[in-house]
């Protein structure tokens, strides 16, 4: 089967700095793929290229067989930005009602996604009055409204408490079991264990693309943090 996302020789320069020097990688359908790497490694840039909002210097990014950012993809790809992209001066419900109309999702979905991200009690509160974690969940909820085939999430679990984080990862797997392709970025290696597949990014280069088990096996490390370290050191030695 085709990959959901195929990136070839992607080259991105931001503010005079070469952020992605030409990477090639693919994301398989129906899996939760983790994009792991320290801050500044180029994760957000890669994600922005996948959803088609990043000006790129060269290379190709295709999503579901179409060029990234194509008009046909806009209802098929969901994007959750790193900082919550919701209106602080509207309530949770008003935000979702608006996004539902923009995405042509049935209004009944609004209540469903509010429950899904566990904000039933806050539906009528202004987003500006919510905690950072709650706001992030409103932003996530907007991307769930139209049940996109590909869901791209930029650090969705930052600032969430461990219980919520666990629930969210369980939820990502539920979506993947239903056929959704997820690309989730994170800078926390703990979360790598929750992914079906990993893309390890450092200084704009893909260090490895493999399963968490394969990573442990390959590096003979006992935990994923250690594995990442060995990979970096090994890479520099080689």
């Amino acid at each position: 089967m085709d990959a959901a996302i195929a990136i070839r020789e992607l080259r991105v320069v931001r503010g005079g700095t070469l952020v992605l020097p030409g990477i090639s990688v693919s994301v398989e359908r129906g899996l939760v793929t983790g994009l792991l790497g320290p801050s500044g490694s180029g994760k957000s840039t890669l994600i922005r290229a996948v959803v088609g909002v990043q000006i790129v210097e060269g290379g190709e990014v295709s999503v579901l067989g179409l060029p990234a950012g194509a008009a046909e993809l806009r209802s098929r790809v969901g994007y959750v930005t790193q900082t919550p992209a919701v209106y602080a001066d509207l309530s949770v419900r008003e935000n979702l009602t608006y996004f539902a109309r923009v995405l042509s999702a049935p209004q009944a979905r609004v209540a469903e996604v509010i429950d899904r991200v566990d904000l039933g009690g806050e539906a009528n509160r202004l987003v500006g009055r919510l905690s950072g974690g709650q706001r992030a969940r409103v932003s996530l909820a907007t991307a769930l409204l139209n049940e996109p085939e590909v869901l791209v999430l930029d650090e969705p679990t930052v600032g969430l408490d461990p219980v919520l984080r666990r629930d969210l990862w369980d939820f990502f797997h539920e979506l993947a079991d239903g056929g959704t392709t997820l690309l989730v970025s994170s800078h926390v290696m703990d979360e790598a264990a929750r992914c079906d597949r990993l893309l390890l990014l450092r200084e704009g280069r893909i260090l490895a693309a493999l399963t968490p088990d394969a990573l442990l096996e390959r590096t003979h490390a006992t935990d994923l943090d250690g594995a990442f370290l060995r990979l970096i050191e090994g890479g520099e030695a080689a």
Partner: protein
Amino acid sequence: MSLSRTLATAARVIGQLRRDPRTVALLLVVPCVLILLVDQLFAGRKQVFQQVGVPMLGLFPLISMFLVTSITMLRERTSGTLERLLTTPLRKLDLLLGYGIAFALVAVVQATIVSIVGFGLLDLQAGNSKAVVVLLAVANAVLGMAFGLFVSAFARTEFQAVQFMPAFVLPQILLCGLFVARDQMADWLQWVSAALPLTYSFDALDRAAHDASLGGRFWADVGVTLGATALALGLGAATLRRRTP
């Protein structure tokens, strides 16, 4: 474009304003207070008040909507909601028209209230053209909105966005003919004035106030105002980039 997405956007923008009753109160009360002030300023000179008062009714919405739009759109750009929206099926035109409809509606309310004060309470005269003055006020509001949208692309912070008011709108008000008749200006100022859209909006209001027949020049003024609005919206649309660095 999609009517449903356009209307959803208009409803959302109005919803945001509704959550800010202080801004709404300022939008509606301040113009009334200012027109009362001008009335008192020219208490003994009814003729001068008549000269200044009618164009003021029509120009308030332009200033208000310029400010409100430039800040709202700047927030949309900096908070990431614009980037997010542009990854959805929402088209730029849906967004622009949504803003246009929302602020035009606000302008209808604003212009109607100030007109009631001006025409009803302060005895301003515009012959049979009172409704025309209100309509011109709405057209000016949309023009101000289009300006605000465009300049929001050049502001990084709300401080900068606010400064565009004196930089962008004030010169147009000074040169439009409200303070000094255009034929009494230095030649080069007349040329500058002729290139500024507000000159034509002012002229239309001035004619509506004095000449009930609304001749060809009036319609030419209206044409220029609408054309300038379309141009500013086009330029504004060009600043809504789907892909950014």
